[in-house]
């Protein structure tokens, strides 16, 4: 990963690469991305929401 990728301009210039890329883009059959393993993920909107999930200490 590089911070430059946020600001840089990208172009596929090579003929072979451009053809292969567009072929992949146009294909509908590619569905190879594995779904995320079912985990307890949650997108939250505030720090309080996270803190509410703090496990409670067990009573002695």
């Amino acid at each position: 990963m590089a911070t430059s990728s946020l600001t840089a301009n990208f172009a596929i210039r090579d003929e072979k690469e451009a053809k292969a890329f567009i072929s992949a883009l146009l294909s509908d059959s590619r569905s190879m991305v594995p779904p995320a393993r079912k985990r307890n993920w949650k997108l939250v909107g505030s720090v309080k929401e996270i803190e509410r999930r703090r496990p409670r200490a067990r009573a002695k």
Partner: protein
Amino acid sequence: MSELQIIKLSDFVRDVGEDEARKRLSSFSCGGLNGEVEQYLCDGAFRHSRKKTSITYLVMANGDTHNCLAYYTLAVKPFSVKFSRLTARQKNEMKDLARINISKEEKNYGISSYLIAQLAKNYAIAGGNMISGRDLIGFILDQIRGIRDQVGGKVVFLEYEKNKPKLRDFYKSCAFEEFKMPSDADDGSSLGQMFCFLND
């Protein structure tokens, strides 16, 4: 099973204040794997989140807002493909899908993509092993699918350092494919680009 919470950096800053947010994230470490990624979290992530040019997300666990397990940054990124390089059939099929930009030099297809600009686990805390890179990528792609379902798009791309073949192999195992698309900020020698196509 641990519960993981993901919060936008901008929401985190709103709730705890920027100084406190910087303090809590200052110990984030990739274990020497990539200093630039650590540096980005200390500086660029705050600026870019403020300007909404990219959005950084923090991964927390079990209600702990002091230890960030991982972070990632997403952005919308356009790129171009040279029109002249395509077959006649591809040009025909692309008519409805992408706009042709005509500059003085040449015709290009402008294509939008979702960029995973940063992605890092925090090796400085014991809980760093609570998530795997694969789970993190899986969650990010699920999140992008949600955005895709709202606004469209199917291309996700990221850059990796070519001198880290293990990283390339890891992304390949997560359905990313390599295409050479050097940026104007790199001579093409140090960074590689990988794509995945969300059809499902």
